[in-house]
């Protein structure tokens, strides 16, 4: 029976990996990750003609603003470390004549005029839309020019102006010094935990639930289930589905990490900075924060506990999905019934996000013990020091007990469900199967 179990598991795993959808999904994931990690390079590469020379005409109707504006354009380029290839010409003609001149070209006309109420007015005239970043650059230069003119007219020096407009200085003093570290730590850690752990986990749970459901449904719908179950016990069949699906999900998780690493590597070789440099920039600050707060030493236990929770949660989701799939008679039924499972996972996702906003919430803490929710919530609370290691251990124990109980009763339901082809009295059949005594 053991060899049949491994044969079924291997076949189920191979079937998933050899599927063309697996290939397509992974190509899409790889390209998407590559794009996300290198998005700035891609935008720069396809971003149009912002690298070409910009033609700018300035019509100064004030008679004094042009030089200040010109100087501010240079200053801002230097300040923001940008380098536009720009040709600026001061013009004296009539506005209408200049408008006619720029019509049908990429040239931008800036008309500076005085204002009684706002010191300086400007019109930016072009034949079509201007590149957004370049417009922002012009706007910044115009705003600074207006400020310079206003200060000059009002006879206020720059130093005085900066004092007036500087941010209010508030010194926050916390007697418990550790609190400041924790707050900083929470923001930093949560910013990294969500995109790197929680989002992939959520995607993988959806993969898992759909895979188990579709495979069981296919075998049921084709009636090949009767042949299979007459040769192996429902228990062996169920476990083979659990093991192959969870192994597939772990493979997919590994591939996601590989894709991420490749994307970072490509970034490093195309951008000139090393892989460790790219990763190190963000990770370095996290490790410094963790170390300062004394959390780094706890990571040795936090990471294994989180991994145990995640693996047990994958098992819990696949158990529920498998048992529910056995009771459905078509893929449409399963798609309907899987929606609550996905919503529970989504709830766990949102609760983990909200835990940062509602620190100390008793409800969130209690929910961190609940199977299906604990997978994301408990590690999030543990990392941000809202619960202790003991709380996470309790969550693991509860989840393990749930899995054991669900396996015990779920297998009985599964045995009846996989040979059930009718939705009549479904709940009655489920309860009767769960209550039934006997071996599987």
């Amino acid at each position, binding site marked *: *029976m053991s060899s*049949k179990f491994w*044969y*079924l598991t291997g*076949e189920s795993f191979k079937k998933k990996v050899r599927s063309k959808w697996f290939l397509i999904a992974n190509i899409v994931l790889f390209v998407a990750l590559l794009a996300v990690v290198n998005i700035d390079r891609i935008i720069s590469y396809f971003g149009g003609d912002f690298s070409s020379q910009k033609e700018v005409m300035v019509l100064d109707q004030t008679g004094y603003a042009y030089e200040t504006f010109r100087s501010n354009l240079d200053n801002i380029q230097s300040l923001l470390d940008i380098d536009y290839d720009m040709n600026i010409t001061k013009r004296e003609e009539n506005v209408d004549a200049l408008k006619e001149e720029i019509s049908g070209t990429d040239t931008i006309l800036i008309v500076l005029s005085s204002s009684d109420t706002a010191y300086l007015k400007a019109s930016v005239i072009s034949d079509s839309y201007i590149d957004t970043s370049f417009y922002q650059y012009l706007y910044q230069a115009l705003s600074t020019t207006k400020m310079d003119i206003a200060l000059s007219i009002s006879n206020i020096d720059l130093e005085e102006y900066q004092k007036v407009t500087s941010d209010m200085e508030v010194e926050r003093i916390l007697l418990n010094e550790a609190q400041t570290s924790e707050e900083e730590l929470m923001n930093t850690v949560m910013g990294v935990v969500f995109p790197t752990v929680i989002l992939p986990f959520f995607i993988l749970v959806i993969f898992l639930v759909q895979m188990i459901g579709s495979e069981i449904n*296919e*075998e049921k719908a*084709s*009636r*090949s*289930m*009767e*042949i*299979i*179950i*007459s*040769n*192996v*016990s429902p228990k062996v069949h169920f476990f083979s589905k659990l093991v192959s699906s969870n192994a597939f999900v772990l493979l997919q998780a590994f591939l996601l990490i590989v894709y991420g690493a490749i994307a970072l590597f490509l970034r490093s070789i195309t951008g000139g900075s090393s892989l460790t440099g790219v990763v190190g920039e963000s990770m370095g600050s996290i490790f410094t924060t963790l170390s300062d707060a004394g959390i780094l030493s706890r990571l040795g236990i936090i990471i294994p506990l989180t991994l145990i929770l995640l693996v047990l949660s994958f098992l819990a989701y696949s158990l529920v999905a498998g048992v529910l799939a056995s009771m459905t008679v078509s893929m449409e039924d399963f798609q309907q019934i899987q929606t609550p499972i996905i919503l529970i996972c989504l709830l766990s996702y949102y609760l983990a996000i909200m835990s940062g906003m509602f620190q100390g919430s008793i409800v969130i803490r209690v929910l961190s013990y609940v199977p299906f929710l604990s997978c994301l919530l408990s590690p999030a609370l543990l990392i941000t020091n809202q619960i202790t290691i003991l709380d996470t251990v309790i969550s693991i124990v509860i989840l393990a007990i749930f899995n054991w109980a669900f396996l015990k009763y779920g297998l009985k339901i599964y045995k009846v469900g996989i*040979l059930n082809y009718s939705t009549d009295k479904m709940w*009655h059949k489920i309860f*009767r199967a769960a209550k039934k005594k*006997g071996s599987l």
Partner: protein
Amino acid sequence: MLKVAEVTKYYGDFLAVDNLSFEVKEGEIFGLLGANGAGKTTTFRMIMSLLEPDHGEITLDGKKIDYDTMEKVGFLTEERSLLTKMTVEEQILYYGRLKGMAEDVILKRLDELLERFGIWSYKKRKIKELSKGNQQKIQFISAIINEPKLLILDEPFTGLDPINVKKFKEEIFRLKEKGCMIIFSSHQMEHIEQFCEKLVLLVKGKVVLSGYLKDIKKEYQKMNIFIQGGVSKEELEKVPGVLKVVQVADEKQVKIQDESVIGDVFKVVKKYDTRKFVVEEASLNEIFIEKVGEVL
């Protein structure tokens, strides 16, 4: 020997099979008959260990059927139980491995069977690309790939043309000669008459008829006389013991109460110019319709 002893199965309060008993010996083909919902599928599922009987016992060679003994059992289900995205080779390998067979043994036997059924060229084709008839052949091959000791055939000839029905029959008789126990279920009674020495007729889970086919026909007593000639339908109907006369084309089919009536019918017929006078036992189809009709 397969022994089904006093087996009863309930689905909740619904009695699906009631106190069913029969035996199938080596090299015997046994007919399990019944109208839709009679309990045939439930009986097959109990033999295949898919369902536990509430009462009674099913044994193969004196042992309760378990997953090890199932390796020597073949099952052809009424619906096509094939994973249609697989190729023919993958499908047979899959079922063969579940029967505990080695891969090289499966492939060797698969080649032989594909050759025998004239579909060797479909070995690498996906099942969903095959015609219904060829899918049925693949299903049959999957049921006999392990040279089963017990073979259950539920409507095996569905979707087959007469040439392929003949091939299936040859294979079934070959397996019978090798000592395979075969349980045969079909709604086509002529197939049952061709194959089965013994049978059970189920109606609403209860046995209404069982035993050797020849004994069943003998006990049934009613017979048919097929006549071609000048005698009229009305004259035949007047003969005591004649139950029914049906005119089909130029032939009259006379149903009689028992064999004692044959002489009286012949006395009437011989007065006329008669080309055909053939006496036959009642067909299983007639027995089936009458017995099932009595209960329903």
